[in-house]
C-alpha cells in the first residue's frame, strides 16, 4: 500500500514537471495558435524557426555566447583552482571567498554591479559585447572552480613532484600529469558553464547590446508582444531544446558508464 502511494505521488509530480513541456511539444506540431484547439498537423513552426532571420541569429548568438564564455570560464576557473590549491592560506582564502560571491549572489545583483562598474564607471560600450561576455564569465567561472577543486583534493600530490624530479618542466608536469587527473572536473565545469550561460536572463538584460538578444531576453520580450507566428515558433524552440537536453544527458551518461566499464575491465 505504501509503495502504491509512493508510486502515485512520483507519477503525479513527474506529470506536473513534464505536462506543460509535452503539451507544448504536441501543439508545436499543429497549426493552432492557442493551446486547447487542434486544427491539423504542420511543421510550419519548425520551418519558421529555421527560416526566420531574427530567430536564427538570436539562437546562433546565444549558443556562440555560451561557448565563448564557457571557454574563458573553464580556462580561468581551472588555472585559478590549481593555483589557489597550491597557494598559501591567505591567497587561497581570498580566492575562495571572492569565488563564493557570484555563487551565492542573486543574478540580478551580479548583473547590475558588473554593468554599473563596466558600463557606467569605465565607459565600456555594451555594443562591444565585452560587458556581456565578462558578465557570463563572472557567472560561470566560479562553478568551474568549484568542480575542479575536489578533483585536485583527490589527486595524489606526489605524482606532480615525481614528474618534476624526473626532469619534467612545470608545464609538462601540468599537461601530462595534473590535467588528465582533473579532467572530469574540468569537463563538468565546462558543461555547467554552458548551461548557466544558456539559462541566464538577468545578467544579459543588464549587459547585452541593445540590438542583440539571447534566447531568454527574446522569449521574455516575445511574451509581451502579440506576434502569433513568433509565439508558436518558440514552442518549437522549447521542444528542440528539450530533445537536445535529453540527448546530451543520455550521451554523457553512456560515456561515463563506458569509462567506468573500461576501468573495471583493466582491474
Amino acid at each position, binding site marked *: 500500500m505504501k509503495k502504491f502511494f509512493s508510486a502515485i505521488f512520483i507519477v503525479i509530480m513527474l506529470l506536473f514537471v513534464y505536462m506543460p513541456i509535452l503539451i507544448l511539444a504536441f501543439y508545436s506540431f499543429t497549426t493552432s495558435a492557442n493551446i486547447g484547439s487542434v486544427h491539423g498537423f504542420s511543421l510550419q513552426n519548425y520551418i519558421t524557426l529555421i527560416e526566420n532571420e531574427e530567430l536564427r541569429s538570436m539562437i546562433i548568438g546565444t549558443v556562440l555566447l555560451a561557448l565563448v564564455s564557457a571557454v574563458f570560464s573553464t580556462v580561468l576557473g581551472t588555472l585559478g583552482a590549481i*593555483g589557489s590549491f597550491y597557494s598559501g592560506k591567505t591567497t587561497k582564502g581570498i580566492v575562495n571567498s571572492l569565488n563564493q560571491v557570484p555563487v551565492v549572489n542573486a*543574478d540580478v545583483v551580479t548583473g547590475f554591479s558588473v554593468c554599473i562598474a563596466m558600463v557606467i564607471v569605465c565607459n565600456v560600450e555594451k555594443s562591444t559585447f565585452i560587458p556581456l561576455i565578462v558578465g557570463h564569465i563572472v557567472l560561470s567561472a566560479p562553478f568551474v*572552480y568549484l568542480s575542479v577543486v575536489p578533483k585536485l583534493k583527490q589527486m595524489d600530490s606526489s605524482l606532480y613532484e615525481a614528474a618534476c624530479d624526473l626532469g619534467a618542466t612545470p608545464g609538462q608536469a601540468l599537461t601530462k600529469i595534473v590535467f588528465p587527473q582533473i579532467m572530469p572536473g574540468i569537463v563538468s565545469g565546462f558543461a555547467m558553464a554552458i548551461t548557466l550561460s544558456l539559462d541566464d536572463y538577468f545578467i544579459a538584460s543588464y549587459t547585452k547590446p541593445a540590438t542583440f538578444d539571447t534566447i531568454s531576453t527574446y522569449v521574455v520580450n516575445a511574451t509581451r508582444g502579440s506576434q502569433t507566428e513568433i509565439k508558436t515558433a518558440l514552442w518549437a524552440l522549447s521542444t528542440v531544446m528539450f530533445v537536445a*537536453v535529453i540527448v546530451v544527458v543520455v550521451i554523457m551518461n553512456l560515456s561515463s558508464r563506458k569509462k567506468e566499464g573500461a576501468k573495471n575491465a583493466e582491474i
Partner: protein
Amino acid sequence: MKGLKFTRKQLCIPYLLFLLCFVALPLLVVIYYAFTNGDGQFTIKNFINFFTSPNTLGTLFYSFSIAIATTIVCLLLAYPIAYILARSKMKQKMVLVFMFVLPMWINFTLRITALKEILTLIEGNLAYYPFLNSIIGMTYDFLPFMILPMYTTLLKLDNSLLEAASDLGANSVQVFLKITLPLSVPGIISGVVMVFLPSMTNYVVLDMLYNSTYIMGSFIGSYFSAYDWHNGSMISLVLLAIIAIITLMTSKYTDENESRGGSLL
C-alpha cells in the same frame, strides 16, 4: 609549454585579477553609489528612502512572502520525492532522478512559457490570482534545485542506523522523526538556500505569467532604467545583506559543491 618557467602558485594570478576586477570592484562601486548622491557627496538619504518608502517596504514584504511560500511548497513536494527515490531499491532509479533534475537544463523562460499556456487554459486570466500563480511559477522553476541536494543527503543515510533504531523499539514514525529527519538537515538547508534567494529576486517569472514585476529584483531594474544608480545600488546592497546573512547562518550546514545542482553531472 616547454621551457616556460613558472610555479604552480602563479597559475591563479589571472583568476585572482579577474575576481578582483569584476567581482570585488563592482561590489565596491555598488557600495559607493549606495551612499552617495548625484554630486558624489556622501549621503544616507538612499538608505532612509529605502526604509521609509511604503513602496519599497511593501515590495520587500511581498518578495519575502513569495519566497517563504515558494520555499515551503518546494520543501513539502521535494522532500517526499527525494525520500522515495533515495530509499527505493529500484534498479533504474537513477533514470527517475534524472527525469526530475533534467528540466534544470532547459532554458527557464521557455519552461515558464509552457507553464503559462497551461495555466491560461485552466484559469483564463492569470492576473486574477497573482500570488497563487507566482508560487506555482516559482515552484515549477525551482523544484529540481530543491530535490537534488536532499536526494544526495538522503542517499548517504546509513541504513544500519535506521535498523538499529527499529531494533531498539522505535516505530517507523519515531525512526523518521528522530533519525532520518535530523540527518537530512544539511540537504534541506542547501535546498532552502537555493530556492529562497532566487525566488525573492526572480521577477521574470511574474513578469512572464501576468505582466507584474512587484518584487525586489525588478526594483533595481526600474531605478536603472530611470538612470538612478544610487537608489538601485541601495536596493542591491540590501539584497546583498540579506544574502550574506542567510549564507553566514547556513554555511555551517551546507556542502558548497552541491550548489546549483552541479554535483549530478
